[in-house]
């Protein structure tokens, strides 16, 4: 027998799982009888190997999906911390923005009577009245865009007693916008600039 033989971790594991080849079996056991260090090593390996086997078998018996912890990744420290940070940022953002700063509803007349840009406060819903003389009787397609051309809202509007009445059902935050009015055929009839804020 090799006096330096101590067995490998793989051998210990297979021995613990009772799968070690016969050719290595006796050699390992004989060594364990005389080597206290390897007995300790073996105990550690055995604890892991048998525990893992037991866990896998038990989970398999419970059902095909019982062992699959779909939300397990949520319990990872890094993921938990990231989620916590996101929630915190969202909360701070909500508080700083302050829902009370947004009016439930605001009205805007276009074009502005003074010839300057029309202004309305930040609002959750904006009622726009276009009292310009339009050659069309409607219905109209209306869109609100940012100066960069990004559409914020679009919808239909009809001619009312005061003009074309547009209900922009969109949270309008501070900034400059353009409102474009199109005929039913898609022809652009008017474009107005307005500001939300002060």
């Amino acid at each position, binding site marked *: *027998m*090799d*006096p*330096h*033989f*101590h067995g490998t971790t793989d051998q210990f594991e297979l*021995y*613990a*799982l*009772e*799968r*070690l080849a016969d050719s290595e*079996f*006796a050699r390992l*056991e*004989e*060594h*364990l*009888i*005389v*080597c*206290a*260090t*390897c*007995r*300790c*090593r*073996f*105990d*550690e*390996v*055995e*604890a*892991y*190997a*048998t*525990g*893992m*086997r*037991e*866990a*896998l*078998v*038990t*989970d*398999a018996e419970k059902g095909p999906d019982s*062992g*699959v*912890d779909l939300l*397990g990744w949520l*319990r*990872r420290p890094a993921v938990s911390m990231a989620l916590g940070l996101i929630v915190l940022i969202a909360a701070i953002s909500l508080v700083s923005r302050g829902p009370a700063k947004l009016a439930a509803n605001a009205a805007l007349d276009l074009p502005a009577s003074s010839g300057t840009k029309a202004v309305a406060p930040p609002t959750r819903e904006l009622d726009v009245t276009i009292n310009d003389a339009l050659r069309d009787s409607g219905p109209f397609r209306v869109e609100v865009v940012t100066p960069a051309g990004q559409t914020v809202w679009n919808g239909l509007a009809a001619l009312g007693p005061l003009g074309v009445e547009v209900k922009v059902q969109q949270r309008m935050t501070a900034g400059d916008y353009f409102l474009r009015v199109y005929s039913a055929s898609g022809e652009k009839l008017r474009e107005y600039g307005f500001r939300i804020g002060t």
Partner: protein
Amino acid sequence: MSTNLATSRATLAETTPTAVTTPPASDWVQLVSRIRDGEAAAMAELYAIFARGIRYFLLRNLGPTDLDDKVHDCFVIVTQAIQNGDLREPERLMGYVRTVVKRQIAASIDVAVHQRHSRVDFEESLLSISDWRENPERKVIAKERAEIARKVLASVSQRDREILNRFYVLEQSQEEICTAMGLTYNQFRLLKSRAKARFGELGKRLSSGSGINPIKT
């Protein structure tokens, strides 16, 4: 009876592999020769070398009852065989000791089974040898370890879990798993060592909170 001597658990201890070497076969021959000559120091040496290992296997398989007596019985059998010249290959002393321990374990279990048959009417709750592996403490320890392993499994991907399942439950070899799942030898080993390390970490964390023996990996 189980197929190996170490089918159950003994106390964990804080040790790491060292450069301890097993005495070469020539030393066994000399030791056997000295015992045959009736040298008391040689008997003590034999006891010092084998007693703990014999005790370890007997404890794991038979439990703590009459443990010292059983260790002593093994030792007596070995020394008598040497002195009677029954040990024909002295260089195989370790193999002979192992055989003696196995026979002792088998005999003890046999005795316990017979005792149980004859005494069961009088003592329903007799914790016999055959009950040793199923005793409550060992069950708790096994359950605890499975729970730690379950936590490890919850933190690995479905693919890694399949690899572990193939190895530990389906008893596929490393080669079979690597071929079936397109893994390299190193990938396979890395996964296993990570899972084992995680198991050790969780075991230590748990043990620091509950006072149980730490699980080292």
